[in-house]
């Protein structure tokens, strides 16, 4: 089971599930993460690869590794 946090800059995947507490799920949904969509990692931070900047359609969203681990991808 891969999550968004395993991707390197330039790699992309398709969201299969979002597994998080209600608050975070809702935040991710409002930020534009939805099952079936493509997500591409654009950049990662210097220390521990966090935060991540990811592309969702035409938008770029920043999130931390903890949040990225809630996003399952294939």
């Amino acid at each position, binding site marked *: 089971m891969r999550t968004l946090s395993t991707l390197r800059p330039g790699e992309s995947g398709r969201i299969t599930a979002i597994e998080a507490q209600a608050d975070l799920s809702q935040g991710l949904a*409002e930020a534009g993460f939805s099952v079936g969509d493509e997500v591409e990692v654009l950049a990662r931070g210097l220390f521990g690869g*966090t*935060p991540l900047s990811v592309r*969702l*359609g035409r938008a770029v*969203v*920043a*999130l931390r590794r903890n*949040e990225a681990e809630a996003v399952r991808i294939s």
Partner: protein
Amino acid sequence: MTLLDPNDAGMNTEAEAAPVPPKATSFALLGPPNAGKTTLFNGLTGGRAKIGNYPGVTVEFRRGSFSLPGGEPAALIDLPGVTGLTPRSVDAAVTADVIHGRSTAIEAPDVLVIVIDAGQLRRHLPFAIEALSTGRPAIVALNMADLAERDGVKLDDRALEEALGVPVVPVTATRARGRQALLERLGEARPGPARTAADARKLADEVILEEPGLNTATRRLDRIVLHPVGGVALLLAILFFVFQAVFAWATPFMDGIEAGVAALGQAATVLPDGPVESLVVDGIIAGVGAVVVFLPQIVILFFFILLLEQTGYMARAAFLSDELMRRAGLHGRALIPLLSSFACAIPGMMAARTLESERDRLTTIMIAPLMTCSARLPVYAVLIAAFIPATEVGPFGLQGLVLFGLYLAGIVSAVIVAFILRKTATKGGQQTLLMELPTYKLPQAGDLFLGLWGRVKIFLRRAGTIIFAVSIVLWFLVSYPGDTLRESFAGRIGALLEPIFAPIGFTLEMVIALVPGLAAREVAVGVLGTVYAVGNAEENTGQLADVLAASWSLPAALAFIAWFVFAPQCVSTIAVARRETNSLKWTVFMVAYLFALAYLAAGATYWIAKALS
């Protein structure tokens, strides 16, 4: 430390600032961050709301007025940018309260103008549908239609209008012509049918005819700007450049203002000799003039802050510093309130409302006063000019380096304080970061000017009211009774406090400057101007910096600078901290820890400098 009270006084003042006839129809701009609400607000009202390009800049709603096409007056409310109406953050809670008429600070709007980004319809459509499900009369503005079209986005807005059941209007908020269509259709606003998030997905597929990928310029720029090493180097270079520019570019303007103040003082000597002439020349002109001279530096600093916000760089700066912030126990988003605190801790503390977790908010508010605010610049500038030689260290000026060091001292202590707080008093709490990085945009000259003008007005109003009044009171305190400073009222108050400050090297003049400096930091400079102009009116007509250089020892001057890095010398900041934390306990804690740090830092500086010299 509970949630913000929407009834608080600040918002009432805001509402009173723009009088609107009671019967006017009220419209509220509602939309996610970066959809261009504030630009639309400025365009419609010619108003003075601050504008930015990073998520969450519109912390407080603003109110203005505009005319409908028929000429009837209407009120316009700018609500905070929110990604949803579920109250996960204070912003969303405030927004939901206003929409449902639960806010007593502002009336329930008659019509919601739902502002979404035409180029981000797929992401923003669920928001529009959530907003429509409130059942309020609404109209949808597809903003930044020009940019979306340029990028090759094609939408079927007729089909969208039919599906949503309310008017859908493509808008280009930056141009009068682009706003006209919206104005013309405001009257057609009506409640739309309730729909679900699943509908939004299906609807997006139907109405988005063409949707190219991410804006290529943004993708290319981010490769450099967000580079783990290069990006951080660029951020530091930008910050360093800004602080050097604040010093170097302002100099000719400051010289001009100084010359003007001196000429004014000369001109006022036509007044008959006596208390009136002394009050005007030594009290008012010297006191207010010593503060107004720093206007160029404040304008330059704000110019850069607004520019970085508008271009979209500020959110990148938050991205780059997030991991560092997280380790100190802060949120990447706290960078925005903290950077604003470099201008003034008051907007900074208020911007902390965008933080979702109570603990993050509290920690950010507690350390905001450690960021070097623009009111400290006058104090630093005059003391640096007096005591730090204008020599070069490699390619950099020593004075600029010292200023940079003072900013750094504030930041480092903030990190340490935050770290300790997060381990103790504000422990726990899950932290998340979810932040849009907006497409890079060219800054809008009009919005930049309005933002800058707002800041200039605040500064000049302070100079014109608080500092003017304090200058007069002080002139009286230092002039009466007796002939010398020590005999005067100011001297007696200072003498009472002097024993407390003597161990850290402060002279009587310094202590006298500290007392009224509590009203606002920059007042301390005005007071020194008054104290020295009055005390040595005959011999010293030169600039304040020269006077200080001649009368203060180097260790004492350095201690005075160190004091200002930490001391909570600003009544308004303390009042806002009380309001924002909603807790007397936390406010007292903040003031106490800052004074303690200031005393220790000034003492350490004095004794170390004395030992070395």
